């Protein structure tokens, strides 16, 4: 078994994250001593008190107190959050334990879509025109004066859950009610005041990209820029294919990177991974979202660095622990991931064709994360992809073709 690195990493892993295997494997490869903190207790916590910790992710300051108490017994050298909520908790813990991390205010601004736009607009960043509405407001009062098309967004839900485009007042009223129903779902409704409000912003036309970066001492290093070749024009915004390197002109890529750098500064992000969604059109770059965390789902497997031996998670852990950083240069090959779309509502009975999909040239892996018997729910109500397809090749064009070919070989049996 691997000899642990002498410094302890506190890894904040929500029990519903897809990121577990990638981070745990990265920590093992680096040989770091690892404590996994989750919002629900592990059944091993009593037997392995240094390896597990239960933290109140809903109350970051309380979680920081709990972490400080833990650190008195088991000194902690670094903390990493893996999603929007744990990024805030990680910031609070980093502040309390004087570890590498972000100010809590920055992590909060990155998590809340309205707060983020207020901050970005205040600093002159190119964000869509936006306004905030309460679910209790009379839609007819303001739907007529909105500019169309517009996009309705819950303030915090992940994976574009509840994000809907509206093209006219009637469509807006229907979308507003639909978002309200999503925010009333049992897993959402008790999560805080934000569930009673909806952000409404201009729809920004043009291709969308995802930028993956690492912020070190306030300076953003762009790790990868992903194109999203399927147009995200709505009415719903389920992600599908990401490919990198970007096929946009160099001028556009440079402007998008500069836009993200300005946004990092505007939000006060100082350290750690960021994941940004941007659009590009004749007006230039637009900042759609910027999160103080790394890319979601299993998508990080599309990224390798140096000669292909370093994962994104290893870079994040190294940075958090103050270990020397390896090359932040992405591997030479083009790479891509497809978040497998949910074909229809129903219970997954079987997924056929996985082996055939894996035989498609350039396909590296097909990872199925849905389990037989799982309820599949399409967007905008849904937020869980049934799996991920990965490909690598000489160019993003051939990678995209491979992903689409592999996807066509999958057959969902849904009842």
């Amino acid at each position, binding site marked *: *078994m691997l000899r642990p690195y002498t410094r302890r990493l506190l890894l904040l*892993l*929500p*029990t*519903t*994250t*897809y*990121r*577990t*295997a990638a981070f*745990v*494997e990265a920590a*093992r490869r680096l040989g770091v001593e*690892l404590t*996994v903190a*989750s919002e629900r207790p*592990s*059944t*091993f916590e009593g*037997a*392995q008190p240094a*390896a*597990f910790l239960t933290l109140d992710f809903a109350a970051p300051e309380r979680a920081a107190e709990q972490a400080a108490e833990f650190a008195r017994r088991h000194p902690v050298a670094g903390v990493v959050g*893996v*999603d*929007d909520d744990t990024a805030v908790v990680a910031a609070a813990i980093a502040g309390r334990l004087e570890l590498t991390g972000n100010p809590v205010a920055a992590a909060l601004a990155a998590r809340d879509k309205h707060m983020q736009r207020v901050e970005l607009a205040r600093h002159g960043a190119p964000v869509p025109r936006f306004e905030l509405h309460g679910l209790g407001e009379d839609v007819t009062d303001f739907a007529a004066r909105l500019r169309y098309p517009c996009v309705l967004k819950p303030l915090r839900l*992940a*994976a574009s859950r509840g994000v809907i485009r509206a093209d006219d007042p009637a469509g807006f009223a229907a979308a507003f009610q639909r978002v309200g129903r999503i925010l009333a779902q049992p897993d959402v409704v008790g999560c805080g005041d934000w569930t009673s409000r909806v952000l409404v912003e201009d729809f920004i036309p043009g291709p969308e990209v995802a930028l993956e970066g690492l912020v070190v001492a306030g300076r953003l290093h762009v790790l990868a820029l992903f194109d999203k070749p399927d147009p995200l024009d709505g009415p719903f915004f389920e992600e599908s294919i990401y490919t990198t390197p970007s096929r946009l002109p160099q001028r556009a890529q440079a402007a998008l990177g500069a836009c993200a750098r300005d946004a990092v500064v505007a939000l006060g992000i100082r350290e750690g991974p960021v994941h940004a969604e941007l659009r590009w059109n004749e007006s230039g770059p637009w900042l759609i979202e910027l999160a103080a*965390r790394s890319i*979601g*789902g299993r998508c990080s497997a599309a990224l390798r660095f140096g*000669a*292909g*031996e370093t994962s994104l998670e290893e870079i994040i852990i190294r940075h958090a622990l103050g270990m020397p950083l390896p090359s932040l240069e992405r591997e030479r090959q083009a790479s891509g991931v497809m*978040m497998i779309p949910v074909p229809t509502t129903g219970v997954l009975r079987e997924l056929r064709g*996985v*082996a055939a999909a*894996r*035989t498609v040239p*350039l*396909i*590296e*892996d097909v990872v*199925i*994360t849905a*389990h*037989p*018997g*799982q309820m599949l729910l399409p967007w905008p109500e849904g*937020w*869980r*992809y049934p799996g991920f397809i990965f490909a*690598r090749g000489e160019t993003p064009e051939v990678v995209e073709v491979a992903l689409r070919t592999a996807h066509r070989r999958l057959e969902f049996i849904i009842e």
Partner: protein
Amino acid sequence: MDAPEIRITAEPIDGSRCKFMVSQPLHAAGVRRFASPAEAQDSPLAAAIFAIPGAEIGEVIVSGNLVTVVKRGATPWTAVGKSVGQAIRAALASGAPPLAPKAEAPVATADDDTLYERVAQLFDEQVNPMVARHGGRVELIDVQDAVVMLRMMGGCQGCGMADVTLRQGIEAMLQQHVPAVKGIVDITDHTAGTNPYFAAAKK
């Protein structure tokens, strides 16, 4: 009569480990683990996998219709996996038994047997009562050369936190209570889990 078609499904666990499910049984009597080409020399299936050029195979574990391959090289499973599939097919097509009977090795077996007893006791008395609280169960498959092979079931099979349970929980307890154990290999087919305790969602 034509030989039945051999179907093989590859299921990478991570960059270094991959499971291959074969449509016909390969080894009915427990688990065989091969940690070097020398150990595999009388077993055509394992020997063929070790012989894949450039793959740097470190370990081959065969149980039932499942082959778990561990590699040290950076070549992706896309490339290596196809060669492993060809090696398995070729070994089965030869008509010879894919694996040689397990050699009598009294000293090593005795050590592994002792370890097996201790690990089984740990699983029965401590590990399984813990994972049972989440509807899970961990089955000890075998111990070979001080490497524990296990399968996760129930709430653990396909659980989003299975890796944490495995590495932070089970492996740590083994290090503490049975320090002679050198490693663990999870041979679970996590994609077939129908009732995982924690299911993942994109964040």
